[in-house]
């Protein structure tokens, strides 16, 4: 069965620019409350929106704004603790009134859905052929599932689909997995595709490919898309209509051009101020080298032969050379899997590595673990995930003071004073020390992580994607804080990131990594102006378009 003619875009005629056409999906005064430990928490408070056939409506907001809850409530996929009020009409039917059986017809049939995390949305134990075939077979028993699956894989641009049918999800890259998810969602030619952060987990270059694919499919199949995103760059490319959500309410909505050209709500304006301003402070020309790495290599052995020789290696970092001068900020940029985090961990001797790492004239690679441990107060690290990097069982005070205690740097009232000082330095209230991490937001937690690293007064701090798990507006606050702390404490940064706009705002020099190797390094301004490698050019183009 040929795919393209199956859905005729003319089924629901829409005259361009007219909002009067019958809406495919209309949500009116949606309210969702969650029962949490006996209390009721309002997640969505009176949201109304409509999606026209063949058009893209975007729902934009930061984490916790209720946008995903809104999307899930369309297909009634919320957990049982949720109470949903209001009206959701799809193709003229009230979804709230449907029984489970008719609802299943809609789910995956008339409405497809793709989720954010392509790794966990696919079942790791089944081949992708089987998973797509299941989606096909559920709604059309008897159809030739295999032929249809091949057609779908071809449609979403998976090369050589016949050989890919037997592949398991872990054998595909993140971008390919997301394509498979899209293929599953499209299996039954839905009239509406709900895309919940479809590209957030992907690298920038892959992101633009997937977005291009979605646009292309929409044009060919004539389906409507409800796009959920926090990323205004994505929305700018995709949406016809934009709704900005905050704290469960829609604060502003309108056609894309209007929202981007003349945002009326201050929150939208804050979201739109997308690039962190400023450039790094000038560097003292006479500064010497603080960190020197020569030939750093981290290879993880894969499988061993009978005599214990590794059969192959995962080459996470291969022969990396770099130097960081005192007071300098070095950006390390690359896509996921390029080895940038591994390089950072290897420099701090948190991973076993080959090669030479000299810190402040001392050769770390020749030292025993115990000697390194005493030096650790001089080089610290801030991790990416503000939720995973703080022990949930300790108070903020205990977390921040742990380094002080380990190195026996302070005790008694002096210890209290230093905890309070460092919490103030990262703009937290000193009373926070008696509370637990779960009481804080992502941005506040990242401040706690920074405080934990800085209380030891280190000279060198590795920042491993310190802002990538945070909302855009919070990111800028953290970037400002880092800039301020660098000046106050005379820090040297190694800034690991995939976000080139942050590099431009913070880093003197930049290192570009690909497949575990450093492919290019130099002054930030020079690299941005004249990238020497195709890969760098592609990164720049994808990130700063």
């Amino acid at each position, binding site marked *: 069965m040929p795919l393209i003619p199956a859905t005729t875009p003319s089924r629901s005629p829409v005259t361009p620019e007219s909002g009067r056409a019958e809406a495919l999906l209309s949500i009116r005064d949606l309210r969702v409350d969650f029962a949490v*430990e006996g209390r009721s928490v309002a997640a969505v408070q009176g949201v109304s929106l409509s999606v026209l056939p063949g058009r893209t409506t975007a729902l934009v907001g930061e984490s916790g704004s209720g946008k995903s809850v809104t999307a899930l409530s369309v297909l009634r996929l919320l957990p049982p603790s949720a109470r949903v009020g209001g009206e959701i009409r799809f193709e003229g039917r009230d979804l709230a009134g449907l029984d489970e059986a008719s609802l299943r017809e809609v789910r995956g049939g008339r409405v497809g859905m793709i989720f954010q995390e392509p790794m966990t949305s696919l079942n790791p134990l089944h081949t992708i052929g089987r998973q797509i075939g299941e989606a096909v077979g559920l709604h059309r028993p008897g159809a030739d599932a295999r032929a249809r699956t091949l057609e779908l894989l071809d449609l979403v641009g998976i090369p050589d689909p016949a050989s890919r049918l037997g592949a398991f999800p872990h054998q595909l890259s993140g971008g390919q997995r997301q394509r498979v998810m899209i293929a599953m969602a499209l299996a039954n030619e839905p009239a509406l595709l709900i895309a919940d952060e479809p590209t957030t987990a992907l690298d920038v270059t892959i992101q633009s490919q997937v977005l291009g694919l979605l646009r292309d499919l929409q044009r060919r199949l004539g389906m409507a898309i409800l796009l959920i995103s926090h990323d205004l760059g994505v929305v700018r490319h995709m949406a016809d209509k934009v709704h900005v959500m905050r704290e469960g309410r829609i604060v502003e909505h309108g056609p894309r051009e209007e929202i981007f050209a003349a945002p009326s709500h201050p929150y939208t304006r804050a979201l739109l101020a997308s690039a962190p301003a400023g450039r790094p402070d000038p560097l003292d020309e006479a500064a010497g080298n603080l960190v020197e790495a020569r030939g750093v290599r981290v290879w993880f052995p894969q499988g061993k032969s009978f005599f214990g020789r590794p059969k192959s290696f995962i080459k996470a970092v291969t022969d990396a050379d770099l130097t960081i001068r005192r007071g300098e900020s070095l950006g390390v940029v690359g896509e996921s899997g390029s080895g940038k985090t591994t390089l950072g*961990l290897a420099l*701090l001797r*948190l991973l076993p590595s080959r090669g030479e790492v000299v810190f402040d004239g001392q050769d770390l690679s020749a030292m025993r673990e115990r000697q390194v*441990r*005493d*030096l*650790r*107060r001089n080089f*610290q*690290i801030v*991790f*990416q*995930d503000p939720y*995973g*990097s*703080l*022990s*949930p*069982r*300790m108070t903020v005070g205990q977390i921040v003071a*742990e*380094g002080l205690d*380990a*190195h026996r740097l302070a005790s008694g009232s002096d210890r209290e004073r230093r905890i309070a000082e460092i919490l103030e330095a990262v703009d937290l209230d000193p009373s926070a020390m008696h509370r*637990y991490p*779960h009481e804080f937001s992502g941005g506040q937690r990242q401040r706690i*992580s920074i405080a*934990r*690293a800085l209380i*030891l007064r280190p000279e060198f701090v590795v920042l491993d994607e310190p802002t990538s798990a945070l909302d855009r507006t919070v990111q800028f606050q953290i970037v400002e804080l880092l800039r301020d702390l660098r000046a106050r404490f005379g820090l040297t940064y190694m800034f690991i990131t995939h976000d080139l706009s942050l590099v431009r705002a913070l880093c003197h020099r930049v290192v570009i990594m690909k497949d575990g190797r450093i492919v290019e390094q130099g002054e930030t301004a020079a690299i941005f102006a004249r990238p020497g490698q195709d890969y760098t050019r592609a990164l720049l183009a994808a990130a700063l378009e």
Partner: protein
Amino acid sequence: MNPITRRRLRAFRANRRAFWSLWIFLFIFLASLGAELIANDRPLLVWYDGGLYAPVQKKYPETAFGGDFETEAVYRDAYVQELIKAKGWMLWPPIRYSYKTINYDLPVPAPAPPSAENWLGTDDQGRDVLARIIYGVRLSVLFGLTLTLGSSFVGVAVGAFQGYYGGLTDLAGQRFMEIWSGMPGLFILIILASMVEPGFWWLLAVTMLFSWMSLVDVVRAEFLRGRNLEYVRAARALGLPDRIIMFRHILPNAMIATVTFLPFIVSGSITTLTSLDFLGFGLPPGSPSLGELLAQGKNNLQAPWLGLSAFAVLGAILSLLVFIGEGVRDAFDPRHNA
């Protein structure tokens, strides 16, 4: 108390069956700890000739009460009772038999059926079944708890060590455990028991040889996972020594699995002791033990009160432990919301 602990306590309390099981078990256990005050062949207090005596704590010769012998007074003897009654009184525990007291005044040959004197009858040596059960429960539960504590301590330590260091340490440990667990534990116990006269501590040591492995795998898995957590990596970056990282940062995670297992390990330990006693390779002859009572029930099918009593008590205790275990498991399960 941090909020996680509070939520777990609340979840446990919401599970009525587990909550009541815990209280009943605690009551039985605490009561059995005072077995001497409940079932004894000596009075709790004696008032004799203007003086107060506590025979449970202290031995008094018969001469102290005006008798003839220098040996300890036999308070169940009618002659001694008369002597004391003449110049004072006695306060008896509710059951006037200890686990080793033999009732010589049985109307029928032992084992005697339940009567007003012996509430659950006597065993085939004329000893009161109820008294033996009370003492037997104490011994079994104490054995179970000690064994659990000891083997958890060893198991958690070994699991933590293997999981945290991984690599060769882990490989060697796992291979050793595979070989060690392949040994037929029960037969080794039987062989050892035939060479030495087994006592409480001796039995404990031997059963521990094989029981420490039950927790190693879960703890090891938690540590393998835990050592890659970001806050553990952050602790290493701060320069914390390994033992503090293991103790403060990873062990609390492993404790969930450990605590969940504990009630089940206790019930397993009790079963082990009971089966050894049943086979006759357990505690020395004469000790009050549920297994020995079961064996008597098997040998005296004409006296069903022996087997039934032992079965009911064992069944009750093991069920209580399993109910408690289920409650603990669900309370620690974050998906199981109270």
